[in-house]
């Protein structure tokens, strides 16, 4: 029976070439889009899921209430891991991790001959037992036991020593905050896989970090590194969270934090919190892309449904005969489903070719290295998705066609045809509505990203180059600046301890006290030390008072705050007021206009600038337009001359700023392509329908022409029906898209308001596309010789 069904299906496919081509093309585009999105989604889901004890790995998070809003922090206290291991029996391992990359820091490493700048970690002894980063040399429980131990990646080992085995036992120098540290290589680990959120080239010990580098890490009143725990098996997490909630209170009388756990695997996908509640993160984009995949497949399925039911008249005879000679409804349903499944599997071949062809572009957009790997899971997904798509495509035509009575099918007198035409129209409206929602969304996201990129952030970010200050330059930046000042094209320069963009990491503090501070008020201020030229270089404006300058006596005793900080503190006439920073008295010298330290989509943060001339981490140089390249070459030469043995790595501030919108830009690019595809598939369906419609109305068209209708009149007659459907789609899509996009925009502190132009442009573009799509068929019918049409009848 199946053979018979497939035989008929195959012969039908060959005979109805337009129908087959439209469906195969639509379904293959739909399937290939779904496969690409599936590869991306599974890759995203795989992030951090390779750890052997992943189900027992948790990150300790801290909660505090600032101005009535619950804030979540992943920075924890240095001693926390030891306290967890000591006080909480359910903890098998607790590890402090100071991720320098997360803090925007990289170290210069030296083995006496070679120098490399790279990112790494300081971590507790159990790091390699807790996380599954396999060691090529060394044992996981031993490599971080000694304070001076440094474990390096196979990559770094190859760069520094030629091979992993030669690296073991060698000494290595690294520098942090201007102090050179010595380490001993105790192990080599395999390079962390791309799907790990922890990316590092070396791991030095926590002991070294808190005893010799960041001594504040020994006390409970400072936060910074992350703390991870590996729990014993079968721990009740609700009870565990209750147990650790007030743990810090046992050790610190000034504590304002409570603790809770977050699954380590949630770090990547569910990183966002709103007023203390986990609200998602990248998972939103994954769901969005999954939804788009389903939508595109559905649009392709609808093409099959519509075209199958549109050409139903061609199958009346077959259905009637089969029913007459004993074919049951079940048999016919099975036959039509076999046909759609066969067609979908044929489309699969083209879909796989499309996937292979588009993978490079897809990888370029997503920044991933995806590809068809034909793993068991992948094959299963591809085959099952194709089967389901085939069944969905065939379901409506199958049940519709198999329901005819044999007599009705044989005579062609069908009462249900009217209702199916309405259903078909409804499905076309759905296709265009879905495509329009995608197009409008893409346009709105595009506008928002453009707005974010162009909105003034309160400081100059164009033509500003930033680089790390190390060695002599860290200790005495002003001496280096005197050299750089001589370079043509350098128009300003300043120094700052850490990046001005908080996404790149950096310090913040609750340690500011001011007159009139209400007890219990907790404000997390971003704090940076700057020199007297930094604000001028970046064009940060003073609203009240003055900035740091050389005429000030003892500038270290002054602070400059931004307007947001003053507003949150509730200070009136702030300039000249005395405040306490970490117990030391300071005077407010000036108030800066607000500027964005993070994405412009985030609210403005309160900022404190303290003064420092030396021991600065970053230089910021303003370059003259069109002189950047030449100036940079000279800056690099001067830096290396001034600071031999150090690398010069620079970045442009505008590019660093734009990186914050990377995920939005990627989603935008993907969304744009998939929206085009959705429109294309919808148009394919419309093209097919127009072909069948004009064929069915051949006689009507001929009679009208014989009676005097012009070609233009026929064109209007035929196209009006289709345009009406698109217009209905526009009417339905507009409020849906508006609602969805309004909801998306509401997550940003600063966003565009959706303009009517977005709807007008997308609506007009869709109508035009639809007209162009149907034109070929409609014009052909309109200019055809009416005699031919009547003769055919």
């Amino acid at each position: 029976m199946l053979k018979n069904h497939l035989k008929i299906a195959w012969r039908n496919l060959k005979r109805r070439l337009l129908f087959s081509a439209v469906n195969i093309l639509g379904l293959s585009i739909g399937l290939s889009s779904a496969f690409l999105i599936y590869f991306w989604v599974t890759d995203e889901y795989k992030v951090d899921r390779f750890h052997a004890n992943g189900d027992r790995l948790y990150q300790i998070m801290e909660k505090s209430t600032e101005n009535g809003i619950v804030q979540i922090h992943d920075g924890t206290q240095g001693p926390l891991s030891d306290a967890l291991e000591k006080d909480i029996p359910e903890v098998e391992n607790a590890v402090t991790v100071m991720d320098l990359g997360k803090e925007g820091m990289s170290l210069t490493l030296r083995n006496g001959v070679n120098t490399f700048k790279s990112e790494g970690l300081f971590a507790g002894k159990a790091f390699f037992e807790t996380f599954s980063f396999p060691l090529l040399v060394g044992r996981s429980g031993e490599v971080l036991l000694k304070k001076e131990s440094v474990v390096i990646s196979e990559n770094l080992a190859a760069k520094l020593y030629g091979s992993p085995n030669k690296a073991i036992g060698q000494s290595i120098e690294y520098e942090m905050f201007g102090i050179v540290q010595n380490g001993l290589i105790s192990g080599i680990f395999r390079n962390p896989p791309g799907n790990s959120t922890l990316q590092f080239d070396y791991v030095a010990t926590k002991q070294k970090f808190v005893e010799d580098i960041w001594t504040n890490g020994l006390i409970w009143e400072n936060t910074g590194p992350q703390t991870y725990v590996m729990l014993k098996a079968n721990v009740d997490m609700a009870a565990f969270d209750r147990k650790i909630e007030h743990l810090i209170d046992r050790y610190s009388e000034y504590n304002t934090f409570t603790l809770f756990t977050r699954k380590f695997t949630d770090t990547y996908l569910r990183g966002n919190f709103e007023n203390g509640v986990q609200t998602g993160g990248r998972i939103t984009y994954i769901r969005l892309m999954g939804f788009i995949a389903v939508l595109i497949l559905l649009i392709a399925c609808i093409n099959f449904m519509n075209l199958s039911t549109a050409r139903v008249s061609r199958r009346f005879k077959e259905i009637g005969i089969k029913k007459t000679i004993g074919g049951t409804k079940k048999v016919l349903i099975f036959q039509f489903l076999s046909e759609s499944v066969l067609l979908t599997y044929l489309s699969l071949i083209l879909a796989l070719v499309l996937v292979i062809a588009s993978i490079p572009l897809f990888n370029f957009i997503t920044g991933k290295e995806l590809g068809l790997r034909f793993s068991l899971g992948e094959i299963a997904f591809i085959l099952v998705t194709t089967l389901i798509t085939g069944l969905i495509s065939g379901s409506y035509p199958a049940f519709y066609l198999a329901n005819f009575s044999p007599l009705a099918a044989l005579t062609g007198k069908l009462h249900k045809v009217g209702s199916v035409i309405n259903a078909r129209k409804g499905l076309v409206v759905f296709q265009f509505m879905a495509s329009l929602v995608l197009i409008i969304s893409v346009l709105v996201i595009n506008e928002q990203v453009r707005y974010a990129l162009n909105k003034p952030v309160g400081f100059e970010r164009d033509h500003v180059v930033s680089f790390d200050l190390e060695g002599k330059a860290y200790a005495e930046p002003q001496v280096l600046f005197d050299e750089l000042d001589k370079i043509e094209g350098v128009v300003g320069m300043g120094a700052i301890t850490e990046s001005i963009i908080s996404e790149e990491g950096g310090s913040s503090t609750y340690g500011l006290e001011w007159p009139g501070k209400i007890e219990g008020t907790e404000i997390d201020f971003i704090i940076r030390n700057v020199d007297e030229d930094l604000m001028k270089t970046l064009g940060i404006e003073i609203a009240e008072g003055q900035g740091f300058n050389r005429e000030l006596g003892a500038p270290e005793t002054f602070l400059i705050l931004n307007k947001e900080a003053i507003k949150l503190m509730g200070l009136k006439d702030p300039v000249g007021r005395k405040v306490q920073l970490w117990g030391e008295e300071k005077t407010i010298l000036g108030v800066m206009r607000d500027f964005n330290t993070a994405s412009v989509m985030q609210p403005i943060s309160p900022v404190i600038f303290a003064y420092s001339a030396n021991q600065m981490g970053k230089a910021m140089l303003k370059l003259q337009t069109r002189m950047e390249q030449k100036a940079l070459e000279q800056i690099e030469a001067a830096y290396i001359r001034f600071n031999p043995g150090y690398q010069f790595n620079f970045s442009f501030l505008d590019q660093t700023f734009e990186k914050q919108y990377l995920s939005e830009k990627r989603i935008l690019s993907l969304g744009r392509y998939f929206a085009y595809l959705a429109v294309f598939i919808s148009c394919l369906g419309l093209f097919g329908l127009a072909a069948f419609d004009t064929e069915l109305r051949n006689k009507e068209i001929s009679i009208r022409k014989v009676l005097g209708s012009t070609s233009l009149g026929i064109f209007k007659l035929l196209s009006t029906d289709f345009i009406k459907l698109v217009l209905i789609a526009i009417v339905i899509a507009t409020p849906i898209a508006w609602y969805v996009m309004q909801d998306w925009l509401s997550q940003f502190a600063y966003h565009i308001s959706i303009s009517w132009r977005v709807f007008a442009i997308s609506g007009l573009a869709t109508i035009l596309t639809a007209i162009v799509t149907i034109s070929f068929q409609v014009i052909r019918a309109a200019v055809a010789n009416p005699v031919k049409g009547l003769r055919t009848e």
Partner: protein
Amino acid sequence: MIQIQNLKKSFRTEEVETLALNNVNMKIAEGEFAAIMGPSGCGKSTLLNIIGMLDNPTAGSYKFAGHEVSGLKERQRTSLRKGNLGFVFQSFNLIDELTVFENVELPLIYLKMNKAERREKVTKVLERMKIAHREKHFPHQLSGGQQQRVAIARAVVTHPKLILADEPTGNLDSKNGTEVMNLLTELNQEGTTIVMVTHSDHDSHYAHRVINLFDGQIVTESQNRAMGAMI
């Protein structure tokens, strides 16, 4: 074999109700060859459709081989048709996508017969219909007479008790028409009951009995004395 009593069939549209059959009473015995005649729109095809269980009557009784079939559901009628009834249409109604062999094989597939048995039966019937040499051809590659022979082959391949023929020679020239009528007569002589709707006086002479319909009612019935005379 067929017992029809007070059979009525009406068609209703939004505004009009048309009575296609009005109190039809008839009996057709096993092995009989009956022709139904009458002008266009008199209800011939409607009656044939009801006898063929393609349609249900509005009122009255229709017994097929002793079983009441009026009011049966589509699924039950399909299962009763399967193997018991064979159809021959004016427009042949072959499936364009299937070859001659596959068209004839189709009813046997629905009867879930195994492949070897199917091949044997189909080959036999095609040889009998003198169309075996065309078994791999598609319908559009055949002449009208050949197509109707394939349609008859498909109708008889399951050895049905009853063959219903709706204007079987309507689309054929006289030579092919005669061939088709001779085939039907042969089948009838072998014991198959045949009910045929026709406009043609010539064809009606092949039947044992001619039933004349007018405005949905049987107006005359006549026995053919010259039965088989034209074979």
